């Protein structure tokens, strides 16, 4: 992160409360850098989040108006903000448990209505904060506190879910794709549309620990090795990244 971008964060709360190597930090980094590269008016930006480590990405780290809400409900609060003052840019940043498990209904309704907010899911495939239970994006077979023998249930493909609900401007990147992510953030920050990001952040502590990805660097490498840039053809066995 560039020195000049420090104004977009509250440096008094650093170092963050995230674990070492937490991919949510990479998302934070990319978002801050996107603002920095655009020299974005931080006083016209409201960041809304729910509960979870993912809910901490914006609050308290980002130096804008932030609304840290209840678990799963960031989107309705964000809609209240946006509809009451359409001039504001409203971005929701929260976790997979928050936005897609307990909060899935608000997500699909926001997508359906194409409310002009941006929703960024810091998707680490698990409930990080509460100690590593399965979420709606935990892969089949993955070990979690609540699936010690491996997860039985299929996860959402969030790109398909949001598009199936009617959403447009849907993106996916992993923590490895810090630069592409940043560029896409810049794109949507300059628009007043609905947009959705599935950002695979990786949780080395609660997810990695149980699934042989304990080392943050290994997790990043794994993301690199298993992802494919989307260019028209969608492979269900790969992590498809890009714009959809």
């Amino acid at each position, binding site marked *: 992160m560039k020195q000049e971008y420090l104004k977009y964060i509250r440096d008094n709360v650093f*170092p963050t*409360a995230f674990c070492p190597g937490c991919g949510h930090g990479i998302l934070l980094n990319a978002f801050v850098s996107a603002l920095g590269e655009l020299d974005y008016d931080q006083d016209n930006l409201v960041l809304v989040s729910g509960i979870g480590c993912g809910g901490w990405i914006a609050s308290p780290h980002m130096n804008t108006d932030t609304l840290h809400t209840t678990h799963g409900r960031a989107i309705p609060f964000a809609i209240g903000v946006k509809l009451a003052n359409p001039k504001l840019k409203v971005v929701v940043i929260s976790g997979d448990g928050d936005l897609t498990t307990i909060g899935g209904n608000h997500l699909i309704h926001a997508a359906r209505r194409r409310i002009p907010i941006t929703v960024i899911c810091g998707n680490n495939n698990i409930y990080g904060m509460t100690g590593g239970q399965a979420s709606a994006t935990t892969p089949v077979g993955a070990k979690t506190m609540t699936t010690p023998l491996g997860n039985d249930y299929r996860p959402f493909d969030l790109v398909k879910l949001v598009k199936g609900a009617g959403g447009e401007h849907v993106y996916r990147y992993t923590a490895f794709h810090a630069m592409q992510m940043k560029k896409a953030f810049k794109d949507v920050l300059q628009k007043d549309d609905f947009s959705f990001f599935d950002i695979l952040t990786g949780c080395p502590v609660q997810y990695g620990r149980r699934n042989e990805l304990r080392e943050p660097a290994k997790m990043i490498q794994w993301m690199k090795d298993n992802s494919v840039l989307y260019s028209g053809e969608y492979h269900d066995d790969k992590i498809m990244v890009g714009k959809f």
Partner: protein
Amino acid sequence: MKEIMFAGIGGQGVILSASILARAGILKGYYAAQSQSYGSESRGTATRAEVVLSEEFVDFPHVEHADIFVVMAEMGVKLFASKVSQEAIVLYDNSVFELSENIGKERIGIPATRLAVDTFKKPLYANIIMLGAMMRHCGMVGPEEIKTVLKETVPSKALADNIKALELGSGLEY
């Protein structure tokens, strides 16, 4: 009855220490209670763990006036000093901080983190070193019980190092 309080920051393993001590107490037939406090921000904030050992059921299972206070990080001292008995023995990690407060009756510095890094190349077993030192002062549980508990709780490949750390702590000269 003995009240023992451990303090440190998240990740230093103070809860594990307390839990090992309590389980060891159980093996000796004591009633044991063990509690802790930590935040959602479980990383980098003050953690406290308490053990009460007694011949019989204890009405109030928290530490009221710690007989022994094991403290591994400086921020723990101020936060929890009020719960330390004036008669207490205070064991602190003097490879991490200097104890300026005048708490308890006896204050003993144990360079646990340095010893751990020296011996195991990582700070990981500092808590067990402290536990070893504590054991001598507690008097209610011995190395046998603690080793038995370690066998049940730590991964087998880590057992030897744990026992080594325990003995390091209990064998220290001071």
